[in-house]
């Protein structure tokens, strides 16, 4: 299965004639503003385009076609109803600057979403604008900094991050002009409290944590961590990427967090779309709520209205041109209404049940669990260090071998802390049979790793391409197509990758 580029399908002069104005009136834009050459866009018929992208789509794994136990990503089923209703014409056609008087339907949904988010986190207020987890982090750390500055405490520029943290945490701290201090993890998976105590001081702005952590365990000392940070004058940021494991069990505010984001595209089933969009709504407790980004929705006697910088003067400001990823917010809102209180309380139960079930079976099958004495949260880590050493079959080989068995691979090599690891997250929407099939596949590969190393290394063979040459991709950088006639100079080569 392979498919030419859409540029290779087209022909000069061909077009999808029903899709643009049939006539072109003379325009009056002065010549100096005009482009001399048309852009390199495909010249294709509508059928060319439909067939091409339909075929490309079939080259993907996705939740709708495959089990997708990608740790830290919470690839749960994305209900179709959420999409249909979020794409009702009244929503898709609403202009972001439409007056409040013709926005009450949309604003009602957002307001209720804010309220539900408060209930399930214990936070005092939410702003829905951040467009992904990382932007939620940017908002949160920005708020922490603004808070300190607002109090005149300008020297607090250090953000503490566990060594197992997701890359967005340290990257965010840097973007906020902070210095990153890494805190170590103990052998049992919890934060090293002694190390933490040594890191804190008057320079500490705060800490970024996810709990359960990226190691798939719940940090039992969270209350002590909060005391240490708060005691040092810092604040706690909760990276809500792993909320699925504790939804309805623990409120982040109760653990001592002052500000947090939630990845709606994880916990609340909005689609990942091959990379995005997401939503990283940010919530804050009493200390920080004045600093939340704008706009937020308020409910008044006259209806819903937007609160902007003039209403919230301490706000860190605006993070998106309009209202964040509004359509994602609607999908999450619909999902929450479908789940309801009962359903939301059930999420963690079954997400955690599934993870512990797979962990138990894999353990029995002879896999090394990274934290064998701990409960799995909604995910858990397997380490293939032993296999890599004995037979040379790595976590990457396991990942590729799973593709040949019709299952997406777990997250590989993250967190960096655990060598040759697979981070496995089944999510609550997968059935026992599917997990049993996964365990069977893993077991089969484990056997193959001793009997047929070459086969493991050759995988995948059933996918549209075999293993790709990443080094070549970086070294002979080719990031856009050039038509044959121009290829000589336009093709980019030899930008050394790194």
């Amino acid at each position, binding site marked *: 299965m392979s498919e030419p580029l*859409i*540029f290779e399908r087209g022909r000069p002069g061909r*077009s999808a004639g029903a*899709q643009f*104005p049939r006539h*072109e009136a003379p*325009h009056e834009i002065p010549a*100096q*503003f005009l*482009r001399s050459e048309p852009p*390199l*866009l*495909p010249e*294709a018929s509508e059928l060319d*385009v439909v067939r091409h*992208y339909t075929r490309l789509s*079939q*080259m*993907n794994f*996705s939740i709708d076609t*495959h089990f*997708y136990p990608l740790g830290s990503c919470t690839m749960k089923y994305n209900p179709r109803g959420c999409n249909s*209703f979020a794409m009702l014409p*009244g929503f*898709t056609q609403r202009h*972001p600057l439409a007056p409040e008087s*013709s926005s009450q*339907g949309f604003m009602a949904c957002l307001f209720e979403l804010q*309220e*539900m988010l408060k209930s399930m986190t214990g936070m005092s207020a939410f702003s829905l604008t951040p467009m992904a987890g*990382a932007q939620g982090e*940017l908002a949160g750390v920005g708020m922490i900094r603004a808070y300190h500055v607002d109090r005149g405490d300008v020297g607090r520029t250090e953000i503490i991050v566990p060594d197992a943290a997701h*890359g967005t945490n340290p*990257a965010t701290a840097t973007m906020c002009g902070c210095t990153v201090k890494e805190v170590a993890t103990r052998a049992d998976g919890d934060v090293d409290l002694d190390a933490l105590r040594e890191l804190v001081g008057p320079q500490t702005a705060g800490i970024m944590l996810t709990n359960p952590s990226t190691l798939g365990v719940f940090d*039992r000392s969270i*209350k002590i961590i909060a005391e240490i940070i708060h005691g040092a004058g810092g604040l706690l940021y909760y990276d809500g990427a792993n909320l699925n494991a504790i939804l309805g069990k623990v409120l982040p505010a109760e653990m001592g967090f002052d500000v947090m984001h939630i990845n709606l595209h994880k916990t609340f089933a909005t*689609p*990942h779309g*091959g990379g*995005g*969009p997401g939503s990283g709504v940010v919530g804050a407790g009493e200390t920080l709520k004045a600093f939340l980004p704008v706009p937020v929705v308020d409910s008044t006697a006259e209806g819903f209205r937007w609160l902007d910088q003039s209403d919230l003067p301490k706000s860190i400001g*605006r*993070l*998106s*041109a309009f*209202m964040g990823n509004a359509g994602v917010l609607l999908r999450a809102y619909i999902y929450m209404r479908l789940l*309801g*209180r009962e359903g939301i309380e059930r999420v963690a139960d079954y997400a*955690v049940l599934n993870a512990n079930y797979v962990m*138990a079976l894999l353990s029995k099958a002879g896999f090394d669990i990274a934290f064998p004495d701990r409960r799995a949260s909604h995910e858990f880590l397997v380490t293939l260090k032993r296999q890599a050493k004995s037979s040379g079959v790595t976590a990457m080989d396991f990942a590729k071998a799973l*593709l040949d068995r019709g299952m997406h691979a777990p997250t590989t090599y993250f967190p960096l802390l655990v060598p040759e690891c697979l981070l496995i997250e089944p999510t609550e929407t997968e059935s026992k049979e599917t997990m049993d099939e996964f365990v069977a596949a893993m077991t089969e590969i484990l056997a193959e790793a001793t009997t047929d190393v070459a086969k493991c290394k*050759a995988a995948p063979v059933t*996918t549209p*391409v*075999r293993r*790709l040459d*990443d080094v070549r991709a*970086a070294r002979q950088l080719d*990031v*856009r197509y050039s038509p044959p006639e121009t290829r000589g100079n336009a093709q980019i080569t030899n930008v050394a990758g790194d």
Partner: protein
Amino acid sequence: MPFIPHTDHDTQLMLQAIGVDAIESLFDEIPEELRCGSLVDIPAAVSEYEVGRLMRRQADKDRVELNFLGAGAYEHHIPAAVWELTTRGEFYSAYTPYQAEASQGTLQVIYEYQTMMASLTGQDISNASLYDGASALAEAVLMAVRVERASKSKRVLIPQSVHPHYAAVAKAITASQGIELVQVPYDPSTGRTDLEALRTHAGTDITAVVIPQPNVFGVLEQADEIAAWAADQGALGIALVNPTSLGLLRPPGEWGRDGVPIVCGEGQPLGVPLSSGGPYFGFLTCREALVRQLPGRLVGRTLDTEGKRGFTLTLQAREQHIRRSRATSNICTNQGLMVTAATIYMSLLGPQGLRRVAVESHTKTRALAAAAAQLDGVEPAFTAPYFHEVVLRLPVRASAVIEGMRRQGILAGVALSSWYPALADCLLVCATETKTAEDIHTYVQALGQQIEAAGGAR
């Protein structure tokens, strides 16, 4: 249980396999005092039917007949095929294409997208998207500062004619890194950036200059002059452009003497519905030499072990998951699905279609402006040529006509007073190719009535 497949029997078998009695036991590592009670404030579950009815009611409340709002979000025809294809489960419910062999569909789409955006903007390289146009501007500023390390000032000139929300976002995102965004006023008669005012910054260690084209008023800036001046100053030019316009207008890669090396903007006009402001997508393209400082994902073409062409994420060492605190940006999840839509949109329109959309959007707005100018006291506020938005000066406060026109089913435009107090009588209006002569007539009639109602002449 909606979305949870477990039968009681399944659950029992699973608990047995784990070796616990009840699901509750799986949470026994969580300190008891942290456990919360039931989420009583969250409403009870509803069925898909019920939520559908609710959402239909809410959506219907916000429907309007005719929308003449632009200002950063534009109503264009979106071919039906775009979203029928984009929402196919294989695109919609896939994750980031880290497992390249299982993601060739998404990867090839992005590679095609990169090609189109690079050509549209006249650059070498396009990333795989950022969140939206405003945050793309912020990232472009950060990128420019990283590129232009020689410039110590971290001062970036940003015309007042940049969309105020964009300027606000750029400020919120870049402020804590010690970057100073310096405003450059616009000429109140032409609506363009005041070149005199710009030139007062000559020789002051400017890191970069933002060049909006068209600017927030729809007006075409003297992009060549600004680009050339920036180059003279050793400052990086950052173009902020509307992608539809590039079907017709000269790409930033050709501005001034040598072109502008960083281009950003809002991708929404390329097949993404208005949707209350999002999800949209930001685009960012640049010259080849700058690729190491480019934030966001990048897809490269390579070969598989059998020599077959394939696609994969590349130069990931720029990104947070590899470089962590030293990454070019913290961005991880981007706006992939919107890029899929935009790629399909551009494939369906092609060079001819995109040009037509640009030209027709322009001529429709001109027709509206001409018709509106027949009303007493109504005139274009600026003299410079514009693309597909126009600022109309009214004989009354602009905000006074908005609500009345809304009641007639028309979103009249943006009253500029809250952004530019000096333009309190100005309305920013946009007609795209979606508006017919009759629509424009309806608009102008309603505008006349509301001006009269607000006490202005007819």
